[in-house]
Structures are given as C-alpha cells and as structure tokens.
C-alpha cells in the first residue's frame, strides 16, 4: 500500500535536494539550516550576512505565500507545553551548533557526499531522537 504522504514526502524531498543543489552549485555553500541561522545569530557568518538573511527570509516567506495563495491548511501539530518547547529548542540549537550541523547539513548534504561525519551524525541524532520519543512519550507521557 502506497500512502499519499509518502509520495508528497518524496516530491518534497526532491525539492529540498534541489534547494541544496542550487546553493552548492550557485554559491559554493553547503545548505545547512543550523549553519545558515547560527552563523547569522552568533556573528560567525558576518561576512555573508546578506545571503544568510535572504535565505532565511525566503525560507519563511515561501511556505507562507504558498499556504496563503493556495489556501492550504498547514498544520504543525506542535505542542502547547512551554516547558517542552523551551527545553527542545535549547537542545536543538545547542546540539546542532556543537555538532556543526543538523538534519539538512549532516543529513541531506553530508550523506549525499558519503561523508563519514554526516553519516555518523545522522546515526547519533536518529538514535537519540528515537530514545527521546520513547522516553517522553511512552515512559513519561509528557508528549
């Protein structure tokens, strides 16, 4: 059985890969969300702040435009528990910067380059993510 969400996942994935290809072949940069954002907020990417800001602005604006113009109901199903949101946000931001990448940089751009670091990072965060859901959902029941 092929679920429609798998097809959307594949198409969306191809577009995400295309975005990374444009960034690499156009600007010679690796499209990693935590790197683009992190370099802007901590000042380490000051030299390219304009490119970074434009990338992020489009990343926010394009889905907004699509949702508004096509009248799609986009759902995040995000939790309303502020403690969960703050804790998760701190962990995601801190961890991604310490590891020098997240799902886009290490996952998409790293694995496609057969980077040992990218593959290792992906194994580590998938493992930790699985344990996290097991713990917080099934054991503690907070999510």
């Amino acid at each position, binding site marked *: 059985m092929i679920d429609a969400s*798998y*097809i*959307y996942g*594949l*198409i*969306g*994935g*191809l577009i995400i890969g*295309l*975005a990374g290809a444009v*960034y*690499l*072949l*156009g*600007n*010679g940069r690796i499209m990693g969300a*935590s790197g683009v*954002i*992190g370099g802007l*907020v*901590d000042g380490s990417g000051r030299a390219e702040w304009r*490119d970074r800001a434009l*990338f992020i602005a*489009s*990343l926010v604006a*394009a*889905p907004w435009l699509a949702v508004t113009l096509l009248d799609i109901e*986009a759902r*995040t*199903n*995000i*939790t309303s528990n502020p403690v969960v949101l*703050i804790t*998760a*946000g*701190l*962990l*995601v*931001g*801190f*961890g991604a*910067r*310490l*590891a020098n990448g997240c*799902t*886009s940089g290490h*996952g998409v751009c790293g694995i*496609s380059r057969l*980077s*040992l*670091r990218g593959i*290792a990072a*992906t194994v*580590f*965060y998938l*493992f*930790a993510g699985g*344990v*996290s859901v*097991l713990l917080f959902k099934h054991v503690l029941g907070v999510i």
Partner: protein
Amino acid sequence: MRGLIAATSGALFGIGLLISGMVDTNRVQGWLDIFGDWDPTLAFVLGGAIIPMAIAWRVSEYRKAPVAGGTFPLPLEQKVTTDLAVGSMIFGAGWGLAGLCPGPSFAALSFGGWEGLLFVGSMIGGMLLAVPARHFRNSMA
C-alpha cells in the same frame, strides 16, 4: 547574484519542507516512534533529497568554481569528533521532544503560532549558548 541564489534556495527549501510534511511535528515524531505507530514518510523525504544533492556533488567535481564565483566547500573532513557525537545526540533528543529541527521550525514560522515562535527563540538561545561552550571546551583541550 549570490543573494538571488540564496533566496531561490531558501524558497525551494521552504516549499519542499511544506510539501513533504516535515513541518508537521506528528510526522517527525511518528518516524522516531518505532515502538508506536511508526510513520516512514521521513525516509522518503531524506531519500528524495539525497538524489539531486548527490548529483550536485558529482557536478561540482567537474566544475572549477560555483556559478556566482568563490570556491566549493573544502574536501571531506572525515574525523568523527566527540563534539559531533555529543552535539548530534543533544540535537536528536530535542528533535524527538518537539518534532522540530532548524529548517522546518523556520518554514513553519508563519503558521506555527506562538508555540513555533517560542521554539525558534529557544533554539536561537541554544545556538548562542554553544559559543561559550565551545570556547570552554577549547580552553580545556
């Protein structure tokens, strides 16, 4: 030129994340929930994204320079460091807890409500905390 390329890439990234369903925290947590109602969608997203990206890496080997000038990323750094392992585990723990990572959290900012904003604000805080943590680590080494 560089700005236009960055904006195009950001827009494609955002649309791809929206279409793929990765802005939905249930899908991400469903993928990680191997003991619950497992959702394999994320594998299709990652698999799909790797195809154009792998082609782009190959193409970059045959080109002297990127279209807008400059240089391609340095040859592969292969060292799996403690920072990479620990950082990825911390990141993964937060990713599972909220079902959001940096890209989708920004792509969903316009419709994610105050919850999405609080997550992004906390994530930026975490990114800023990583700076002194790295300095501290380097001073110990």
